[in-house]
């Protein structure tokens, strides 16, 4: 029996289609705390025009976003806010850590500055630079689109694989048991 596909009909996988839709309409949540935020604004503005990559709709409500761009240093007072905003974003969601401070703490190796947000929230893309140029951020968005297309699934199964649940290698030396117990747990769900 011959199976014929009518004209104007395309066959694809549902996972591929969902990822294709998602990657081309990322809605960024600008978590801009420092000078990287200025470059983030330049990325969204007309000269660099992130609209070419479908990610121009910056929303200041996490409920309407699926891409958190952390631009700038995050202090220990700010991190509970960041975590709360991340938890408020609907699935599926991704995170870009923009610049040296968000990724590693940068030059701010002090008591108050978190040494890389990936210790406490999941991160998909790291952008080096201090601050990175808009081209670098756009490259990260392109790479993230590529990642979404390759790994994405309709039901979001890629987020619940075992490898994703493992703490980052940098975190493994900071088991909570080693921390001074006199300190209260600040923020989070504790």
């Amino acid at each position: 029996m011959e199976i014929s596909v009518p004209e104007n009909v395309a066959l694809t996988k549902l996972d591929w289609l969902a990822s294709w839709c998602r990657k081309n309409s990322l809605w960024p949540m600008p978590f801009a705390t420092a000078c990287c935020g200025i470059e983030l604004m330049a990325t969204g503005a007309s000269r660099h025009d992130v609209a070419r990559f479908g990610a121009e709709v910056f929303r200041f409500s996490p409920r309407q976003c699926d891409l958190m761009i952390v631009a700038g240093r995050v202090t220990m007072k700010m991190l509970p806010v960041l975590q709360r905003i991340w938890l408020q974003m609907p699935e599926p969601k991704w995170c870009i850590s923009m610049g040296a401070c968000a990724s590693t703490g940068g030059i701010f190796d002090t008591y108050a500055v978190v040494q890389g947000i990936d210790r406490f929230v999941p991160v998909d893309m790291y952008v080096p630079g201090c601050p990175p140029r808009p081209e670098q951020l756009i490259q990260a968005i392109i790479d993230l689109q590529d990642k979404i297309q390759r790994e994405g699934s309709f039901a979001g199964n890629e987020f619940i694989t075992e490898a994703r649940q493992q703490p980052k290698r940098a975190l493994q030396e900071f088991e909570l048991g080693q921390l001074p117990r006199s300190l209260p747990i600040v923020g989070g769900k504790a």
Partner: protein
Amino acid sequence: MIDLSGVLEQLKSRFGERSWDYSEFHSNQRLVVAADQCFSVLEFLKKTCGFDMLIDVTCVDYLHYRGAKDRFGLVYIVLNTVTGQRLIVRAFLNEPELTIPSVVPLWEGANWMEREVFDMYGIVFAGHPDLRRILLPDEFIGFPLRKDYPLRGRGERHNFERITRGEG
């Protein structure tokens, strides 16, 4: 640098010669007073000498500082907005007596500046209407701008819950 000799004459007639120490350095005009006299000197400066604006209240920790005899140096910078005279008033404090009268009754603007000094150095301002932390979280333990506080902290920057993909 605006001449302060009139102000110094008034101070001398009110507080006597030996109770304060005046010096100049790089056109900064500085007055060192005893901690227990600090409030009355500032009150006199405001009400009699016309120093109507408090520019800043801050503190220096002189721990391990070469030649320093005292631990904490409180710094008040006052300005006479009519004549343009500027004066830096300093008072030294030592542990365990880290209490000094608040100047909020004189200048309302001292409120947040004294809270910041309390937050960072643990200096207690007696009579302050609302002395609690201003920059650091309320749960913070310790005073991080003291020289004996470790630069990288005591683990507070690692002390958060981790959020993984599964919880998100």
